[in-house]
């Protein structure tokens, strides 16, 4: 049976609830109605807070802190087929938590590697995220990433930037982490007007570029290695890579 849900974490938890209590045999989980439905049965899950809460309670009871973090982390790997693996992870955990350490299980192995991939991306973006200063002093960063890592970046930069207000804008997902004196939250951003930048912004960008150029040692020139470390897909918002 194909299950359709809205892609939210609550939605997924509601889905888990229905799979359990209605004993559904799931083959695929999708966020969008598929184009053709030939042979498969199809069921749409509606996000239901009460159901989600119940499943969440179960998770907090049955899984260790670290495993709970894994569940949440995997959920952020939203460009992969993470739902089936996660469903299996939960099934195993509710049945026999000890089994969760068995990497001979393909689902668990997949999850372990997926989580690694996510954390690796997070670490890279700690370095590759670039802020620009707006005219009111807010720092504004645009990102486009494979997985949804806004929560990680938000926490990281909240520690780092002290009292300075900032916005991290996930362009692909239309999400933003917003932090200022009054609030600290992730919200969805339907539209975003082009902001006005501080008068210093261009100057510091230019300075950064000259620093970047001056720091390279010509006799060790090795662009292949450079690209190995910073693949092109990360470079969109990194001014040092633009002419």
């Amino acid at each position, binding site marked *: 049976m194909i299950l359709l849900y809205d892609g939210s974490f609550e939605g997924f938890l509601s889905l888990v609830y229905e799979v359990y209590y209605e004993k559904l045999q799931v083959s695929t989980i999708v966020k969008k109605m598929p184009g053709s439905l030939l042979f498969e049965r199809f069921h749409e899950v509606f996000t239901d807070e009460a159901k989600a809460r119940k499943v969440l309670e179960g998770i907090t009871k049955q899984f260790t802190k670290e495993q709970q973090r894994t569940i949440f982390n995997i959920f952020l790997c939203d460009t992969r087929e993470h739902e089936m693996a996660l469903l299996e992870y939960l099934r195993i955990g509710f049945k026999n938590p000890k089994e969760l350490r068995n*990497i*001979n299980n393909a689902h668990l192995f997949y999850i372990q590697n997926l989580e690694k991939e996510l954390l690796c991306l997070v*670490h890279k973006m*700690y*370095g*590759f*995220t*670039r*802020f*620009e*200063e707006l005219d009111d002093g807010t*720092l504004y*960063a645009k990102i486009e990433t494979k997985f949804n890592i806004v929560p990680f970046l938000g926490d990281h*930069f909240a*520690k*780092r*930037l*002290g*009292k*300075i207000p900032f916005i991290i804008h996930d362009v692909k997902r239309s999400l933003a982490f917003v932090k200022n004196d009054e609030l600290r939250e992730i919200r969805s951003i339907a539209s975003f007007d082009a902001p006005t930048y501080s008068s*210093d912004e261009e100057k*510091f960008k*230019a*300075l*950064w570029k*000259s*620093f*970047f*150029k*001056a*720091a*390279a*040692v*010509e*006799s*060790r*020139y*090795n*662009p*292949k*290695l*450079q690209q*190995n*470390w*910073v693949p092109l897909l990360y470079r969109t918002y*990194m001014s*040092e890579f633009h002419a």
Partner: protein
Amino acid sequence: MKLTIEDKLSLLAGSAKYDVSCSSSGSENNYKTGELGCTHNSGICHSFTSDGRCVSLLKVLLTNVCIYDCAYCINRVSNDTPRTAFTPRELAELTINFYKRNYIEGLFLSSGIIKNEDHTMSLLLQTLRILRHEYRFNGYIHVKLIPGASKELIEEATLLAHRVSSNIELPSSKSLALLAPDKTKEKLLSPLKHARDITMERSSKPISMSTQMIIGATSESDFEILKLSSSLYQKALLKRVYYSAYIAVNNHKHLPVPELSKPPLLREHRLYQADWLLRFYGFSYDEILSENQNLDIQFDPKTFWALSNLHLFPIDVNRAPQEILVRIPGIGIRGALKILQARRFKQLSFEDLVKLKISLKKARYFIIAGKDFHRSTSLYEEKIKLALIHQGSNIIQPTLFDTSIYTGEL
């Protein structure tokens, strides 16, 4: 002619780029609520230059004016190059603005010697004071100690910076006399000693310090170099020695001819690998090399050591303790830990090792795992050598696709 801040930055970053001792990893996290900046203990790379090296710090000189005349240095007094200097305030503002935009993890500040040693050290400290006290900046700061600066100034530096260092540059007094006539080993080591002693008095741990040695400018063997590193580690003077392949920037009668000399990158790479064996795998320098020997070019130092000590192999991965496991070529600390953990549940076979993602490329010639033993090659040195070489590109392209230059793990 008045230089713009951009010109200054180009010049002063350009002359600092040969210093490689600048990673920010390994410092403690020190986040304070509401203040600007904190360090991250695994180190964060913010970009990579066209030579493939990581940029994590604003690495600059305060000034490239210098009264010394070190032959290998682009800033030596006898060179006719444009000179300039940042004011401490300019430098502090640059750091803060770069940090805010997440271009950098912090500052790596060095300097030519302007007027005299203490005067220069005071200017460096002035920059640090503005950053720490005025801007309340908590991000990473590494400052070069000026050889010959007075004790009080060194003490203040240890209070303001996360890491201090002083470059030894050349591996022997003889070479220093030849190429850096204003420097002596004592003069270079004394700020490190001060810094160690002062910080040991304050707490049981000395401040984390590093140094750099230029490789290939003079005739010392790898044996001498590793011996020196090892004694510096033992005296708790240093946490890290960086090796920097000599890059010709000047003509000098005691230096290799620039046109003929390419930076010895592979040698540098091998030294990092050997250094890793010293720091983490419990090897001593005279196990790795004998008197006046250089590191093997074809094999990494651990494989070379194993090939010269075949009587210790094969090692049974189901029995050997950690300190022995890490001596197997191809098995690093992480691999050893995985093996220790996994074998609590069962006897490990070659297949299990593969599952644990342990690379058997080299290791298989040196281990027994359960009933498995790589019988196609008996433990006979020449045969293993051949087998290892025929695995394809055995001579590692230094730096290319090889992260062990940064980690050194073998």
